[in-house]
């Protein structure tokens, strides 16, 4: 408004329209303390007849500290603007125009009217007004919000400029929604220094004083840059535009911060846009299925819960959703992942260099981050598929400071179940999940994030046995910035996983079984950017576990089931960590961390002691000790090392190496090939030692074609200790002496992963080949019986060769096609090698464990994505996804099994998705 006014008044102020108005040369007293332009102007206007005109945006970084007595307005302005690029000009009519860089001529050029009038001199001569202070050291410091690429932002206090390096920090946000842009890179091509924003969109970058151009690049965001003049430490928030793919896109990617430069290895990050491009079996974007396309990730079968990373078992993955531990990441036994694709922002999978702030699992960390709600307006989206529907709503609660995002999904598979043959006619299956996240900015230094997740699955088989399971998660996070270089995140949370089974069919045996695991978490994480050479991270994590291993109780009056409960287990897992990212030279950078983890098994509990050196059976039980509440029964602990180093060989070529050790104090008791939702967890105790693992890895990273093609080769060797296996015929549920049924196993895994990734252009995607082997060996001296005579045998998920191709081709910005192709060696299998006749029928004689393999796996999926028109102003933005899963219709064996039917042994192979499966999904945004 003021700008228009300014132009209007410029016209008015021209001598042609000179009106009679007296200039006021009266002397005034002024006293400004860190005054903003509006305060500054208001004070002068109140004391004089002058009217000020200026563009507020241009003066946003100005702070005036000035005290003058009996000065003219001219003098005040002169002093206030000394040493700056701000100018002023005063008309005879008492109008004051404040500008930056140029001076408004308040009179026409000399001789314009052929008169000899003297032209007023622009009042821009610097004077020696030492009292002027353009400061940014205020407590209520305003952070510069930078939206323009072409404007020069001046940061910090010029007078405080003392040479050397200064730190710039701030948030990178989406200009449209105000959501943070996570993992955006801020890169200075001159100093070759760069950082990525953290989960809050926060960055901190140190560079020398002076003018810089920083390049900003975020996933799904339009590349941008900021011109800055750095005087001293300061803040700069950067707003980015969402990327709108144009028909003819010219990507300038020469300055991209490449994967080559980070010290992290064995890490994959995928944003939701990419996830949504990958065809999924029922058309709904599936986070976990995308994880399976990454090199080094295996699964025992399609549509099964759990995945295996670099030879680790499925319970060795820590799955985090906004820092909350998700114990079961899938619905429908693995048909759908538990994560709502509409509110997921991105996923990160750490396979090798696991940051020291994470711990507690041996194989990997899968960190799923949900979006923050739109801070500017209410929006939402909805999706309809054949089996599931979902809805998400987000918006501000109060403008720009608080926002929420809510997502819900549900299924309506019952209509399909009713189409089944009689045998399953009375079966029911349903699930739903709900997420609610609220983020609130208290002020520039403090942010609060609340996130919650609730899921529920329920199945009934022929109105007989009902299974139910669910996750409950809640966390509150407080982020505090102490200064540009140091911030902390304090998180408190509660996670729960539960399942229950009940059966009422036979009233005598009617029972209800319950299991649950509860953990209360407390975490503090500090990040400290000491200087360009050192970035420190340190903190403390603590988890209090309360695990109810199982309780079985009778249902109804007739039931003879004896109530039985395995006593609850309690434990405290704590860790203290310190890590330093040290840039030794321009080319060599080391990330070194240590995490000291401690596990206390707590009372109340009764612990059995067994005769040493003998098989651990109830007959070798020596005695048992009962401990009181919160007594420390057993403490395990030790340091975990996290080391990785990167050496840059050339601009787009680097080599990295890493070594890390991990400890895991919680075990999933499962002797089935795939884990199931009704497997119980067990804490380490005096008889069951924590699992230990270490891994050494080496990688080469090379980028081509201006960094648009990333390639990497990583090799690793990994060892596992104290992984659990089970005695023949072990009872894993409701076992009061579970230690007598478990055996400890050691494992080794090694492999090489090759990846080619194209990140830009009409055609993008990745292709990977992995060679990997995983072997287990049971050498527990207390086993009594040995699997395969104590020799190494391939683990269930040992699939030596694995090839993946995931690609997307965008014809126009409305039409794109995606292809996903998977090949892998079949998983190992224990096969019958003979048969015998027993109890009236043929029985099979099994080989040594896992000596054979099921046939190789191959599958290709294809989908077409059609976006609606791209008019900005429409109520609904619709899109369709059509596709075919398993387009070749290959009957991939999911399992093979041998059963005795009418006395004869018959072998079968079962395929799940044995035909091409078409799917369609409709999505809308509003």
């Amino acid at each position, binding site marked *: 408004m003021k700008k228009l006014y300014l132009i209007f008044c410029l016209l008015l102020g021209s001598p042609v329209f000179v009106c009679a108005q007296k200039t006021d040369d009266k002397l005034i007293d002024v006293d400004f303390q860190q005054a903003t332009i509006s305060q500054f102007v208001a004070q002068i206007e109140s004391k004089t007849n002058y009217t000020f005109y200026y563009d507020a945006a241009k003066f946003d970084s100005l702070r005036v500290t000035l005290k003058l007595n009996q000065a003219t307005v001219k003098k005040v302005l002169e002093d206030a603007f000394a040493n700056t690029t701000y100018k002023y000009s005063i008309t005879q009519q008492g109008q004051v125009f404040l500008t930056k860089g140029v001076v408004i001529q308040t009179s026409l050029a000399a001789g314009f009217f052929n008169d000899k009038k003297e032209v007023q001199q622009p009042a821009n001569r610097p004077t020696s007004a030492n009292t002027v202070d353009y400061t940014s050291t205020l407590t209520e410091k305003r952070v510069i919000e930078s939206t323009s690429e072409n404007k020069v932002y001046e940061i910090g206090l010029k007078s405080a400029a003392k040479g050397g390096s200064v730190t710039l920090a701030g948030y990178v946000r989406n200009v449209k929604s105000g959501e943070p842009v996570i993992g955006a890179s801020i890169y200075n091509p001159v100093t070759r220094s760069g950082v990525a924003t953290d989960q809050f969109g926060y960055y901190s970058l140190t560079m020398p004083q002076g003018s810089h151009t920083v390049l900003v690049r975020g996933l799904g965001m339009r590349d941008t840059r900021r011109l800055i003049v750095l005087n001293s430490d300061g803040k700069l928030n950067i707003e980015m535009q969402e990327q709108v793919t144009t028909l003819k896109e010219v990507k300038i990617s020469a300055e991209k911060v490449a994967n080559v430069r980070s010290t992290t290895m064995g890490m994959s990050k995928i944003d939701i846009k990419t996830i949504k491009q990958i065809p999924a079996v029922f058309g709904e974007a599936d986070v976990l299925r995308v994880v399976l396309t990454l090199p080094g990730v295996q699964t025992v079968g399609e549509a099964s819960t759990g995945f295996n990373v670099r030879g680790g078992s499925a319970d060795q993955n820590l799955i985090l959703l906004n820092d909350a531990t998700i114990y079961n990441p899938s619905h429908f036994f693995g048909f759908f992942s538990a994560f709502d694709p509409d509110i997921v922002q991105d996923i990160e999978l750490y396979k090798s260099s696991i940051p020291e702030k994470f711990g507690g699992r041996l194989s990997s960390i899968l960190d799923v981050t949900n979006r923050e709600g739109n801070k500017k307006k209410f929006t939402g989206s909805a999706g309809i598929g054949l089996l599931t529907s979902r809805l998400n709503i987000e918006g501000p609660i109060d403008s720009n400071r608080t926002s929420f995002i809510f997502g819900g999904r549900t299924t309506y598979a019952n209509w399909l179940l009713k*189409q089944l043959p009689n045998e399953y006619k009375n079966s029911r299956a349903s699930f739903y999940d709900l997420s609610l996240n609220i983020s609130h900015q208290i002020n520039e230094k403090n942010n609060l994030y609340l996130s919650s997740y609730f899921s529920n699955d329920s199945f009934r088989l022929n109105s007989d046995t009902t299974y139910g399971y669910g996750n409950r998660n809640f966390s509150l996070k407080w982020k505090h910035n102490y200064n540009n270089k140091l911030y902390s995140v304090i998180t408190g949370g509660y996670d729960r996983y539960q399942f229950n089974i009940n059966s009422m069919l036979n009233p005598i045996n009617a029972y209800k079984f319950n299991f649950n695991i509860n953990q209360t978490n407390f975490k503090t994480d500090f990040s400290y950017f000491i200087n360009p050479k050192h970035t420190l991270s340190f903190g403390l994590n603590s988890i209090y576990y309360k695990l109810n291993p199982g309780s079985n109780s009778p249902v109804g009056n007739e039931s003879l089931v004896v109530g039985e409960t395995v006593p609850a287990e309690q434990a405290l897992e704590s860790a203290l960590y310190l890590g330093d990212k040290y840039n030794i030279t321009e080319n060599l950078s080391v990330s070194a961390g240590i995490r000291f983890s401690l596990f206390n098994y707590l009372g109340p509990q009764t612990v059995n002691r067994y005769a040493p050196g003998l098989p651990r059976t109830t007959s070798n039980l020596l005695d048992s000790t009962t401990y009181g509440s919160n007594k420390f029964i057993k403490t395990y602990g030790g340091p975990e090392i996290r080391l990785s180093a990167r050496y840059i060989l050339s601009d787009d070529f680097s080599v990295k190496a890493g070594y890390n050790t991990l400890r895991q104090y919680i075990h999933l008791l499962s002797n089935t090939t795939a884990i199931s939702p009704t497997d119980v967890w067990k804490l380490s105790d005096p008889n069951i030692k924590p699992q230990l693992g270490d891994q050494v890895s080496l990688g080469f990273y090379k980028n081509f074609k201006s960094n648009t093609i990333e390639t990497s080769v990583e090799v690793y060797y990994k060892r596992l200790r104290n992984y659990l296996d089970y005695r023949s015929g072990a009872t894993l549920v*409701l076992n009061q002496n579970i230690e007598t049924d478990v055996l400890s196993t050691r494992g080794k895994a090694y492999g090489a992963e090759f990846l080619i990734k194209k990140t830009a252009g009409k055609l993008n995607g990745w292709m990977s080949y992995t060679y990997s082997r995983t072997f287990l060996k049971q050498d527990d001296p207390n086993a009594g019986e040995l699997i395969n005579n104590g020799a190494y045998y391939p683990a269930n998920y040992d699939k030596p060769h694995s090839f993946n191709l995931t690609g997307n081709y965008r014809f126009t910005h409305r039409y794109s096609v995606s292809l996903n192709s998977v090949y892998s060696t079949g998983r190992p299998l224990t096969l019958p090698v003979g048969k015998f006749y027993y109890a009236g029928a*043929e029985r099979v004689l099994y080989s040594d464990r896992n000596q054979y393999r099921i046939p190789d796996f191959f599958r290709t999926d294809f989908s077409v994505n059609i976006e609606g028109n791209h008019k900005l102003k429409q109520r609904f933005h619709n899109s369709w996804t059509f596709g075919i899963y398993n387009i070749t219709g290959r009957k991939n064996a999911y399992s093979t099994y041998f059963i005795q039917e009418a006395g004869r042994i018959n072998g079968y192979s079962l395929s799940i998705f044995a035909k091409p499966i078409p799917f369609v999904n409709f999505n809308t945004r509003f």
Partner: protein
Amino acid sequence: MKRFFKLYIALIILTATACKESFNPPETNSNLNYLVVEGMINTGSTDSTIIKLSRTTMLTSGTTLKPETRATVSIQSADNVVNRNLTESKPGTYFSAPFALDGNKKYRIRIRTAQGKEYASDYVEVKVSPNIDNVSFEAQRVGVPGIQLSVDTRDNSNNSRYYKWDYVETYQYKSNNFSTYIVDRNSIRFRNLPQEDIFNCWRSVGSTNVILASTAKLANDVVNKAPLVKVPASNERFGVRYSIMVNQQVLTKEAFDFWEILKKNTEQVGSIFDSQPSQLQGNVHAVNDPNEIVIGFITAGTVTHKRIFIDALQIPEDFRFRNPLPCRVDTIIPRKYQEVFYEGGAIPVDGVFEPSSPEPVAYTTTSRACVDCTVRGTNIKPAFWQ
């Protein structure tokens, strides 16, 4: 877990995409030829002790049973008082007439093969089976409709806890077509009934599944409706009259574990929600070679029996047997008698008459399975049949 897997498979099927195909494992050339020992030492005074010895065979081999013949098998008591040899009644089956043994002692089986290798089981305790309370049946419409047979039993002393059952089903059934005539050398005459009856037959089928139940988790040692077998609706078993003989045995915990693993390994293994095949830990060992694998678990005790009869009229009409196909009947004229009846072995069903002749001018015939019930059973009425 098996039920769990079934549900899982049901979910897959609901997408109508799952597919089950026959699978033949890769050939293995090694014939392991392990000794297989099956049986129980029957300490009761009415039942005989039967021990069966056989060898494992290759999976692809056509033979189901490879008996181990000419071995010496004996029952021995732990205190060496009892040492009783068994006699080989048929190849691989070693038999001893009923004789009561002291239930407080422990017994074992000792084997000496024809090659001279010595094997012995562990000494096992005697488990006395309580009487079977009841064998009942129920028409179930949930799932696959069928007649569910179940057993109830109890031990008021609460000592039994682990039960195993097997059964023999016997049923009477009828041919599709009643044959009035019989071929007698090169002529056709009336059939002599009941000796030459091929219309009414009985068939006996033994159980093939391992049926187990445990009451270890129950307050009282009561087994309520433990499922034995589910006969699908419209099965031939429920055409006329059906009988089931249930044999009950009580096991030790170790024996129960053995049977449970055997059951898991052969009846529900391979799906990814089932446990891995477990090693079958038997209690028979080679005397001189502890590493030699011997399959089998010898138990000792008594067996209790219960037989029930179910008349087809006792079950709901829609569960009864209905003849699946009408059998095609052909008429054979005299000049074809030689070819069809006398040499072809076809069975004449009815005569074709003309008003002019008291003798049939032709005979009808149909396929053997339609007219001759002895193809699948016996026309001799079992002694226990009521």
